[in-house]
């Protein structure tokens, strides 16, 4: 098994204590930092996402894998140069006003970050104006809007409507998700995409940006 394969395996298994050492060893052996990132970590997280989608693993396994990747990226970052070199774009993500649920939003943040985005987590109970304000940043490519309750679906609608009025609307895609959300609802409120889980959100977001 190559060192990069070892890193990928450790990331998939969520071995946060092992990954930094393995990354250091790979760098010492002269491995390309970009390849370590793409093959050892981002690809590994894609595998994790697929397994999650298929119920082969569950939320904790996904969280520890993301945590392991984060530890590896910390070691890798100085070798990669500035963050703009490794980021494929910026994503701002939050849970709508009136809704305090954060786990779905957190998972999407982790998976989208693991797919190569720079993520700004707006938190929970986020007013529509805050989404619009954050989306004004020209680097923002994705705006993720989460709602976990049927009672906060109207807040999602209001948020997406506000985003659709933004003068720089063509610069970013609006993605929505959450337990009560459906493709039909996403279409109705004018979102660009609905995804049923965090792994799909990451792959759709990536497809929007890199094609």
């Amino acid at each position: 098994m190559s060192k990069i394969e070892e890193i990928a395996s450790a990331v998939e298994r969520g071995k946060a204590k092992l990954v930094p050492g393995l990354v250091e060893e790979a760098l010492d052996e002269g491995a390309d930092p970009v390849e370590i990132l793409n093959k050892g970590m981002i690809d590994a997280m894609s595998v994790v996402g697929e397994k999650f989608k298929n119920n082969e693993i569950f939320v904790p396994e996904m969280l520890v894998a993301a945590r392991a990747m984060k530890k590896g990226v910390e070691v890798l970052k100085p070798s990669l140069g500035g963050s703009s070199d490794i980021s494929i774009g910026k994503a701002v993500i939050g849970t709508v006003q009136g809704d305090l649920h954060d786990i779905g939003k957190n998972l999407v943040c982790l998976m989208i970050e693991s797919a190569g985005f720079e993520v700004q987590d707006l938190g929970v109970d986020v007013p529509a104006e805050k989404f619009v304000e954050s989306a004004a940043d020209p680097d923002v490519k994705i705006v993720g809007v989460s709602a976990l309750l049927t009672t906060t679906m109207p807040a999602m609608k209001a948020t997406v409507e506000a985003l659709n009025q933004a003068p720089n609307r063509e610069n970013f895609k609006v993605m929505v998700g959450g337990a009560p959300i459906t493709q039909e609802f996403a279409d109705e409120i004018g979102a660009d995409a609905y995804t049923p889980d965090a792994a799909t959100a990451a792959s759709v977001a990536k497809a929007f940006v890199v094609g």
Partner: protein
Amino acid sequence: MERIPFRKEELEVIGQTINMGRGSFPLLNTPISPRENFLMLLRGEDPLWIPFARDTISVTPAIIKDNIARGFVYDATPFDPNVEGGGPDMFGVEWEWVPTVRGSMVRPGNPKVPDVEEWEKYIEFPDPDSWDWAGSAEKNRALIEQKELLFGATILNGLFERLISFCEMSEALVAMIDEDEQEAVHRLFDQLADFYGKIIKKYKEYYHIEILTFHDDWGSQRAPFFSLDTVREMLVPYLKRIVDTTHDLGIIFELHSCGKNELLVPAMIEAGVDMWNGQPMNDKKMLVDTYGDKMIFGAAPEGIDNDSSLEEVRESCRKFVDTFKDHRIYSGAASNAMFAPGIKEALYEYSRIAKCGKAE
């Protein structure tokens, strides 16, 4: 018990259940009380009709601070969650009542326990002996003494839910599988099992409950939060202790666990859970076919809500009874169909006829 055939007069409303803030439900002119009928199901006998979830009544008294914090006080004390809901629970965790949601949550970002491995530094267990159980029971005397409905109590914030409230969702989930943190979680659940045992004993002593409902959400809309192996390792030993304490007191144990948790049913059975009224996204037919001899499941008529027409409700109830009449099951109603027109009468009539026939 004689299999008394159904007579139309049984649909006559002879009273209303006690209203504890959730609304009251009609009491029909049944040949035996809903309580007796439910007990038949629990004893393994074939009840005269499929028991309705609302044939039970459950208290969450104000003497337990969790119930105020969660906006979930149901006892003789008048309680308006929009005014009184939220605040500290019995461990001092602050909850926020969200009126639009009609529920409380801990606002993320400032966990009471910032490091799971050191939870003992931040958490002091309350002393149930210091609460006014006798006074609370006295206020609820009418409820305790009624014999129409199966009487119980609900414990909010089970084992995993308590962990979430202490350290937030993501951290709680990681702690369930992280080798370094699992030991601390075991210590916490061990103490919680004893603590809940004390509360259940109080409920038995002062409220004479017959059924305990224990809230512990284990899943999301699409899947369990964690694997069956994780539940077996981290939750079953402690849940089983709580169930055993409950059973030793002659009380039925109902697990309330939201989420698509059908994969975790083997763990519920291993813990000794008597009943689980899972949410509608679980495949109830598969569950009763696979595990119906080991546990009682709650299920609900599908495709209706409070705005459905009487005809739609009756058709859905008829299909439900056709599907489940030969299984050990009780019928609930999805939260958005609890007041669907004629739902209780339709479930009653169809299941009475299916089980006992119709009088000439």
